[in-house]
């Protein structure tokens, strides 16, 4: 193996003797590099997978089994832990709430974000730069700076502890990211198609919805995936602004369920609740993982 590499080197260089020595050193160093790489990746994979597997197995154990040893398999696999989690932790209800809030917010932020990005990217008008930079500021400041005024802002509008209130807040805070990402995307779209649409008699509205928006769909998909993850995992905004238990989202419900466990511990059900929360996202992730990796890379290459 190393001989082949050495030959290649030799062909491409003038000082064969010195170079062969160098190459051999390089090859052995590359072997160490590869071994180290494998070592690191295997170690990290174990650190990632083991806790998840442990939670999965424990979710079928009884509390006393969990307390006696973290390693043993359950003597019988207790499906009833899942029933308890479903009824005690209200997972079903919170899951539905999360779906309603996140899907509505996602739809709105994609639509409004695309519209705003389109205007900023394709039209010249006074104040354009100002809007752009103000949005950039919105991306940089911590949400915690705004959280108290936001609470009262929603209260003034009668939107505190309501789904529309939470949805609007989600939209507002996801908007800057969406606009930036799509801004770059709309800028890169060819201008000719737009001109052609106008010549064919399309107005601004039709040109956007029937020509420009479909062309931007790869970018839209990438942003949508990120927004979905970000909004689905959102914790601070619902905890501060959505305190009515009937409207809790999943992250809130899980947090409350875990802290209620301090007094009356049903470990099995807690683990089951964690599994129920994680599995749907993991399935979606595994189905879309190529797409997601692609989206991350679109974020970097600009």
């Amino acid at each position: 193996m190393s001989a082949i590499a050495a030959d290649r080197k030799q062909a491409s260089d003038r000082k064969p003797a010195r170079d062969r020595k160098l190459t051999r050193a390089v090859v052995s160093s590359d072997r160490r590099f590869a071994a180290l790489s494998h070592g690191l990746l295997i170690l990290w994979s174990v650190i990632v997978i083991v806790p998840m597997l442990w939670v999965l197995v424990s979710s079928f154990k009884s509390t006393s089994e969990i307390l006696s040893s973290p390693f043993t398999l359950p003597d019988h696999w207790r499906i009833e832990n899942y029933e308890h989690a479903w009824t005690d932790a209200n997972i079903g209800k919170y899951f539905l709430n999360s779906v309603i809030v996140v899907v509505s917010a996602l739809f709105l932020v994609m639509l409004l974000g695309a519209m705003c990005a389109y205007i900023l990217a394709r039209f010249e008008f006074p104040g354009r730069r100002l809007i752009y930079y103000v949005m950039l500021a919105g991306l940089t400041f911590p949400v915690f700076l705004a959280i108290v005024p936001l609470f009262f802002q929603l209260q003034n509008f009668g939107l505190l502890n309501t789904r529309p209130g939470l949805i609007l807040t989600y939209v507002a805070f996801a908007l800057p990211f969406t606009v930036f990402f799509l801004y770059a995307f709309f800028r890169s779209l060819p201008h000719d198609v737009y001109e052609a649409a106008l010549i064919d008699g399309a107005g601004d509205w039709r040109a956007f919805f029937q020509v420009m928006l479909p062309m931007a769909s790869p970018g839209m998909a990438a942003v949508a995936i990120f927004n979905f993850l970000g909004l689905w995992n959102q914790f601070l905004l619902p905890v501060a602004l959505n305190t009515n238990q009937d409207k809790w989202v999943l992250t809130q419900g899980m947090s409350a369920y875990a802290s209620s466990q301090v007094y009356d511990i049903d470990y099995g059900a807690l683990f089951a609740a964690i599994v129920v929360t994680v599995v749907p996202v993991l399935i979606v992730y595994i189905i879309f993982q190529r797409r997601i990796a692609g989206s991350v890379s679109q974020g970097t290459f600009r």
Partner: protein
Amino acid sequence: MKDTITTSDTASSRPTPAARGGRPRRRKLTFDRVTFFLAFLGVPLAIFVLFVLYPFVQAIFWAMTNWRGFSPDYDFIGLDNFTKLLEDDIFLKALRNVALLAAFVPLVTLTLALGVAVAVTLGGPSIGPVRGIRGASFYRIVSFFPYVVPAIIVGLIWAQMYDPNAGLLNGILTKLGLDFEEFSWLGQESTAMPALMFVIVWGLVGFYAVLFIAAIKGVPAELYEAARIDGAGRFRMTISVTLPAIRDSVQTAYIYLGIAALDAFVYVQALLPGGGPANSTLTISQDLFNTAFRKGQFGYATAMGVVLAVVTLVFAALVFAVNRLTGGGESEGKKKASGFKARRAGAKGGAQ
């Protein structure tokens, strides 16, 4: 993908960017056009201004009042809240904790993420062109796993892992013959903070690893080819080719990891909702949340928010400065600067 990206980069650095395609788009103001502008720009901006911008501006004003929220009257007290903060031992503790988080979490996360990314992309066989490692996509999928798990759940999983009696961590350590039975990782001042940091790192490494894998794949193959001909091994290539080439991605990631670490709210709420032993893991975000929504001291809490914002900006400025001083960032000037915005938008999506 790459073509479109370069064009967008150059376009945004031009003085009149919308002139792309040669013709200015000034037409008569028709009814159609006016409604179009109102709807397309007006609606998103209204939402943004009402729920993001205005609260930010209000925060700065309220930070200078003694407002307690539910009563309408308050006094303007200037900078009193801030001088009070400087004497508030609990807040200073939180500030110190947050500084520790911002110092270590990005560093460790990025080191690991870079390690994983380099191993996946450059760890392949030594012969021929640089190739990825066997099983690269498996490792990529696995390392990204924790990122799709909601952060609160990440916290809850590790709260169980760290459990003194039933937790897997002590179980493993005891099996290995170490004396960790009933050792309370989150209950000791000396271990609570590192334990917390580890959980945050665990949750975030995957995203940045995938980000860097993408960035490394964008490095032109000729650079590796040239390094190869010069007799460089994989270690040398990593140091001399890969890292300089993706340095701006690293800077962006550093800033957003810092922002995530300065917040850390989700993780501390899941692991150490009470602020940890002797407040050793109390964060500004937790202190702020309790001061506002439990004690009702809204003016004082907003002042904490202002401090957090200032700390965040200082952190970002520091990262910029360090990157500049060590020779990065500036080299390609404006082009990179405009590329940065979009990239940081990408990183932010991850940091949410």
